[in-house]
């Protein structure tokens, strides 16, 4: 595993400095100076973020601050304009050679994404396939694993998210909370090293939020490395190792959840937390 260049770890150390345990490890995700513009509007203005294996990082911030965009850059659903992102020792979306970064071909980018799971606000389950088929899809057709083994693993995953008896239901026959749990199982089926969640509970009725957050807490407890964009401050306080507050394309403040949420320093963090708490 060829780790990222030494200088990339820099920002991570300052952010995670107090925690001796994680500092000793190689980061799983390391973003440095990430910039992204849509047309003339710069949406990300130099984002630095380091996530160590097993960490749960919550990304908070007002609407339009660039949280989704940053998450999408991490698995190269968006191309970045400057900076770099390393995941698990690989430079995301580019190949370095002779002092230059060469953009990867779409199929190479696709292969890189296998190790990164993503869960969307609107679930995005495949509506023409049952819950079980949704979970089996990628291991079967991306990895080409044998049918019976994939089926067994998929049933285990559905059981893990509490939906074993819904295996043969189509997404249209499931509630929002159930759909999102299937979506989590679908992402886990690729055995990702890193899971990205983009407001996984924002499209859910209030009474269904809990069942999805419970699955995510289980996952965090099992040691999964997670980056979670959320407005659920309770979840951040309970499950996150690290909370990052984003505003207007930059990271304004970061720290341990208890400290940052109870005692924010930056005026914009204060204003945001005052609104959502």
């Amino acid at each position: 595993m060829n780790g990222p260049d030494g200088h990339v770890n820099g920002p991570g150390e300052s952010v995670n400095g107090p925690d001796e345990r994680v500092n000793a490890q190689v980061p799983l995700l390391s973003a440095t100076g990430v910039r992204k513009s849509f047309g003339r509007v710069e949406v990300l203005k130099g984002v630095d973020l380091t996530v160590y294996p097993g960490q749960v990082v919550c990304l908070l911030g007002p609407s339009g601050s660039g949280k989704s965009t940053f998450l999408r850059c991490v698995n190269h659903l968006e191309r970045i304009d400057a900076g770099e992102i390393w995941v698990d020792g690989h430079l995301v979306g580019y190949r370095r050679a002779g002092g230059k970064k060469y953009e990867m071909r779409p199929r190479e980018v696709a292969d890189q994404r296998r190790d990164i799971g993503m869960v969307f606000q609107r679930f995005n389950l495949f509506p023409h396939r049952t819950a079980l088929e949704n979970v089996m899809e990628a291991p079967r057709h991306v990895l080409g694993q044998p049918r019976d083994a994939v089926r067994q693993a998929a049933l285990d995953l559905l059981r893990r998210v509490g939906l074993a008896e819904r295996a043969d239901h189509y997404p249209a026959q499931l509630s929002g909370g159930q759909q999102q749990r299937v979506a989590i199982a679908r992402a886990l089926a690729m055995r990702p090293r890193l899971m990205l969640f983009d407001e996984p509970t924002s499209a859910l009725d209030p009474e269904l939020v809990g069942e999805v957050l419970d699955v995510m807490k289980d996952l965090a407890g099992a040691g999964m490395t997670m980056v979670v964009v959320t407005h659920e401050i309770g979840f951040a306080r309970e499950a996150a190792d690290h909370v990052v507050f984003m505003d207007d394309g930059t990271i304004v403040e970061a720290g341990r959840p208890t400290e940052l949420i109870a005692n924010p320093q930056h005026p914009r963090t204060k204003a945001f937390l005052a609104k959502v708490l």
Partner: protein
Amino acid sequence: MTAVQEHVTEPIVPLRRPGRWVAGAVLAVLAAMAVSFVLTTPALRPDLVAGYLFEKSIMRGLLLTVELTALAMLAGLVLGTALAIMRLSENPLLRGVAAAYVWLFRGTPILVQLLFWFFLGAVMPRVSLGVPFGPEFFSAPVNALITPFTAAILGLGLNEAAYMAEIVRAGIGSVDRGQREAAEALGMRPALVYRRVILPQAARVIVPPTANETISMLKLTSLVLVIGLPDLLTSAQLIYGRNFQQIPLLIVASIWYLVLTTLLTFIQSRLERRLGRSDVQVGGHA
């Protein structure tokens, strides 16, 4: 409260629909008129219709019509899908080529295109494969390659591809953007994203207009008359050119067109039901 309870057992009278009865009566009269017309008009010659229905050249024409329709639609569907994907690609050159193709083949009469392929040998006696202005690896006379049948497939198929390209493009456009992202996020390569996620969902939107196209192709194939191919309608025309029994032979051809259309409609509804499987609501099946 007590007043309400008194009403509870009152019977419900369904809405009366007098319009249905009126429409039914009108239709019954019209149907009776049609039956009486068929039975009392000797020129229709039901005996001749029955006699020619399975006549040898009619059967050959029917077979040709089915072959041309199937092959032209297959070519149209495959090439049209490729064109639609090109049209939606990030490569401006591919986009341009696809747009130009659709412009050219939709913009000129199908009759002209059929004749063009048929007479290609006249303007271009030989085809060759090789470096332009350079050496040739392969060369053959066009007239040997392009028979009337291949000219018909080229003409109908390439034309159909332009229409299918637009149908498939609309189908792909109807699939939610999040579907592609979810597929990409799972590590699917672009071709797999199309094959497993986009196209199966687009199919629901693509099937009805494609069935339409197929049914209209069935009848469009009679244009191959101009390049001397005896399809179903042409075969009927050849017969009545000799015996002057136009009406009975046109009825024979129409019966076969109706049979084929019925068959296609049946296949269409089967396909639509299959693709609609995932719509079943909660409780629909468990």
